[in-house]
């Protein structure tokens, strides 16, 4: 693990996090030793296919996982509240207590993939935003209402006074996502977690939302944890990228390095398997063979080993550390040990 220099401040520092689910069919190691850091104002992209553990990582930070079936078995989530005190370890906080509630939606906010299921259908959009503001900021009912309208305006919703009184079903998909962003940003969080924020949207609306997130980030200076499987969105938004596969980080670096000189065979495979827009030569795609393994029987050692096209060694079946091969570029692969 990298050591933190004294002047280097992180908003969030996840250290060796393990979040497991206990089901009737066995234990799922959804997050299996993930470490990541996000600096103030930075966008960290977390890439991976379905089941790789990206969403569980995010929900672990917010302590939003079901208490009965899941547990953070190991690790730390250090959150710097910017109050001059040492960072708070979120894994030790009561997931239903007042402390986490004062952080959730206030200092750390989240936007989800499907805005229709994450907004309440029986409250107007405005009420929902104002509720969050009223809860966290001591500005009273009128102040909260005013802030909600301001936020709706800021995310580019026309006629915000009128939209305030509309229900989520009256808005289009893009507008709902804007409303959710308005709600998430209404308390000026220092960290925004965006879990597939544009996956359910059309490309032209996606473009609007991504531009909006970028301009609001510049304005408000928050850090973003951007979770997506869309490599185009990552290329556009992220400063640094962490690639996840079956609960583990396999590669971590700045965004240019990930796209121009990726090292892990999985990252390379992902980049080769997608068609790139505007590439006139219609060469055959090089898919990654096989499929994502069953979460109950993840291969030992390198989970990608059975699908890996590169020469295999016996060392692949043992635990492999995440190694820094060049400054700021870490890979978990026996090729680079």
């Amino acid at each position, binding site marked *: 693990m990298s050591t933190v220099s004294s002047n280097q401040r992180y908003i969030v520092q996840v250290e060796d996090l393990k979040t497991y689910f206990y089901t009737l069919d066995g234990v799922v190691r959804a997050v299996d030793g993930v470490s990541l850091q996000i600096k103030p104002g930075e966008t960290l992209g977390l890439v991976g*296919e379905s089941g790789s553990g990206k969403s569980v990582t995010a929900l672990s930070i917010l302590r939003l996982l079901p208490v009965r079936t899941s547990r953070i078995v190991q690790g730390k989530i250090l959150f710097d509240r910017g109050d001059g005190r040492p960072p708070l370890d979120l894994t030790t906080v009561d997931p239903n207590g007042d402390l986490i509630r004062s952080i959730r939606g206030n200092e750390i906010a989240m936007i989800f993939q499907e805005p229709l299921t994450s907004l309440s259908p029986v409250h107007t959009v405005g009420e929902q935003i104002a509720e969050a503001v009223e809860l966290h900021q001591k500005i009273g009912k009128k102040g909260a209402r005013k802030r909600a309208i301001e936020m709706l305006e800021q995310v580019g919703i026309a006629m915000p006074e009128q939209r305030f009184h509309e229900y989520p079903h009256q808005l289009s998909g893009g507008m709902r996502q804007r409303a959710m962003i308005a709600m998430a940003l209404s308390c000026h969080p220092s960290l925004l977690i965006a879990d597939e924020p544009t996956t359910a949207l*059309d490309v032209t609306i996606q473009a609007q939302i991504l531009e909006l997130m970028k301009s609001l980030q510049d304005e408000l200076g928050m850090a973003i944890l951007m979770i997506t499987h*869309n490599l185009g969105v990552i290329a556009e938004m992220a400063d640094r990228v962490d690639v996840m596969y079956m609960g583990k980080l396999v590669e971590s670096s700045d965004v240019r390095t990930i796209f121009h000189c990726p090292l892990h065979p999985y990252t390379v495979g992902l*980049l080769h398997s*997608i068609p790139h827009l505007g590439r006139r030569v219609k060469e055959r795609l090089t898919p990654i063979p096989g499929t994502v393994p069953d979460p109950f029987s993840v291969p030992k050692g390198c989970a990608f080993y059975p699908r890996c096209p590169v020469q295999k060694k016996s060392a692949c079946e043992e635990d492999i550390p995440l190694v820094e091969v060049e400054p700021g570029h870490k890979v978990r692969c026996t090729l680079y040990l």
Partner: protein
Amino acid sequence: MEQENSILLEVRNLKKYFPVQRGFFRRVAGYVRAVDGVSFFIREGETLGLVGESGCGKTTTGRLILRAIEPTEGEVLFRRNGEMVNIAQIPRKEIKALRREMQIIFQDPFSSLNPRMTVMDIVGEPLLIHGIARGAELKSQVRELLEAVGLKAQHMNRYPYAFSGGQRQRIGIARALALRPKLIVADEPVSALDVSVQAQVLNLLRDLQQEFGLTYLFIAHDLAVVEHISDRVAVMYLGNIVEMATAEKLYANPKHPYTEALLSAVPRTDPDRVTRRILLPGDVPNPAAPPPGCKFHPRCRYARDICRVNIPVWHDLGDDHWVACHLANELHLAGI
């Protein structure tokens, strides 16, 4: 691929209006113009990509061609035994025979396979229904089909739940191939799949096209996927095709402002290639009450007075580049 190949399917002014019913007596209050006068053609052995955003009518167009739903107006001409037959007009009892010529692959590999049927039953059903094979012959044909799509024949007695998303999509493809159709309508066949599996299915579709001489109508919203798989591409907006050309020309040299905006909106997979993005204001209008004139004019940054009044004509700019825009000859639009 070029001019020599004969046209397999020609669609002329196809329309589908869905009634909007209101109130206790379900009175018809208006019509959603899902497909509002679409014309295009597909040559034998080629892939026509149909792109557009949700609600633009691309899926409805696909279903109209298969006559899974009845068109309101228009012609769907399909080459059968050397002559063009209007599918939109043939009697219902002949539709079954038509299914041998054209098949569909669905988007969702989970809901499109009956969970209570084995793979053998699913892939063999079309062969049974059409009386093509029975018993041992049926089994051997299913085995061949499964092998053609890259599945193990010994898995044919399993149920769909035992397969991953990519494998299920292969089952769906085997079922579509069973009757050796000429035309396959592939409706978002890879959008529900993981990135690493998408490429497997795209390659498979290409291989099968060569092996069986298939013609595809490939419906998708992912512009990179469509560029990769298609010979020609048609772009739909609010029930109309606004532009159609070869994939190279459409992406490099778009002639319709909507195509230009759509292309500019796709995030590039290269952090160094900054796009000059054209942000379309607002949302797609309600298809039950589309704007007058050119339907795109309220969001078009080049719109002039004529665009607000007159509906643009669908015309050929030459070289098979079709467009419906008043300003197609004046504008210089940016491609990729």
